């Protein structure tokens, strides 16, 4: 999997856009620019992984709030967006665990055993299937397909080795194909 051109939502995080801003901005101005460029891509990523827009916005705001709290340090990073995504993905995992507990409680009302109660599932089947994959596979695939990130970028965001990312992507794609009901012949 090579470097894919960045497009779509990631255009909002185009470093070139940031470079248009004059230097010597204040800390808050700097952060405001970061906030504006990262907000929608982050919401999209969180939506893909949680399935709920409202939750995604909440998580994004929390992640950005944490970024602000540590802005003095984070703003000096080569890629503050990677830091934000790592925090966001961790928050999404915590949120899913919490929701799973709630879902089990709800399911128990109807004497259910292990089914997932997904009360908001109006989004695309693709994301629905992706969210059922193991956590790391889902994260790798979301970063790849939604943000068009390369293997090295994904490795940076998730703080894991590139070969590991490749394995997750490969296995994740195979699982996606099965989940979407695609036959082997339909795979590229």
């Amino acid at each position, binding site marked *: 999997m090579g470097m894919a051109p960045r497009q779509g939502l990631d255009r909002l995080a185009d470093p070139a856009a940031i470079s248009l801003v004059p230097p010597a901005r204040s800390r*808050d101005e700097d*952060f405001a620019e970061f906030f504006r460029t990262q907000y929608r891509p982050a919401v*999209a990523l969180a939506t893909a992984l949680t399935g709920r*827009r409202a939750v995604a916005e909440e998580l994004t705001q*929390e992640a*950005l709030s944490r970024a602000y*709290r540590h802005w003095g340090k984070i703003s000096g990073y080569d890629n503050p967006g990677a830091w934000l995504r790592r925090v966001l993905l961790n928050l999404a995992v915590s949120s899913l665990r919490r929701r799973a507990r709630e879902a089990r409680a709800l399911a*128990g009302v109807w004497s259910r055993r292990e089914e997932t109660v997904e*009360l908001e599932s109006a989004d695309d089947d693709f994301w629905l299937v992706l969210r059922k994959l193991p956590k790391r596979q889902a994260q790798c695939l979301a970063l790849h397909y939604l943000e068009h990130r390369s293997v090295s970028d994904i490795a940076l965001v998730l703080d894991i080795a590139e070969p590991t990312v490749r394995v997750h992507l490969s296995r994740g794609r195979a699982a996606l194909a099965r989940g979407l009901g695609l036959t082997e012949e339909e795979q590229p």
Partner: protein
Amino acid sequence: MSVELHARRAARALERDVGAIPVPAPSVAVARARRHRARTVAGGVATVVAVLVSIVLVVTTGNPESSPPAPDAISPDAMELQHFDAVRSLLTVDAADVRYDREHGDQALRTTARHLRVQRCMGRLGYQVPDLLTADFLIAGGRGFRGFEDLDALRAQGIQGRLPDTPYQRYLGALANPGAASTPAATEELGNLQACGRNADVTDLRAEVSDVRNRWLSAVAAQEDEPAVANARATVAPCLRARGYAVTVDADGEAAPVTDGSLALPDGTPADAQARSLAIGRDLADCLEPLVAARTTAHRRARETFLAQHGAELAALQQALDDLVERLRAER
């Protein structure tokens, strides 16, 4: 269609979807960050403690007889849509207000309404659906800890904040041993539940409420610079250190002075899970007492100022929320 095509289509749809949402002002994140700072030292310390303790504690199902009584325990009875006081809910000043907001605030209202809609929809399809739990419990996942302003709860419940002997606790215990296995009928039922859930959301007035709440949080955050509050805040870390906790001060100098996994438990902390939780809860409550008192005074004064400036706006919001409750009640 290949996975790649599926992915491109799904990504485009999501991009379109998210591209339409308004991007809030960065001050939202700034206010949140300040709120984090304002809500403490205590928040940072106790969260860290809770994490540390949760590592070593054995999760128990809870023994109502051996648990201390929770002050003003929340009753997870049948859901009800209640009118609520917008000022008290949005402009929280003290522990009682925080409890009130959690139990009856706009988030509780929306969650309750949503589940009532699901319940009613399922009822129309012929399912015998018992009352669900109160919104507060669904939101909090059953944990009753109500904010670090609530020193009484902190002392009585410990930092784990479990609510003993509530129907909800018993309910969760029963869930640990579900009876019936899945069946095709159950699968169909689940599908119906999903369908009912899709149209159950209540988002009315969310933006208006958030706007007022965020402005209030900014006002509250400003109180952190008041000398009385700042002085009281400065006592928390030394107080905890004096009791044997290892506490460090945030390096950037502007966040809460105690953050980021910097708290270690003192020697002699009880090994027993509940005793440990209670001991830490009492220490934290004691050390937080001056800060909470200073904040309560400052926040009460700030609320008066806020009301003088935004009273009409709050009154309009209160009316709109009252109307929403009436409309939701009429749906039932």
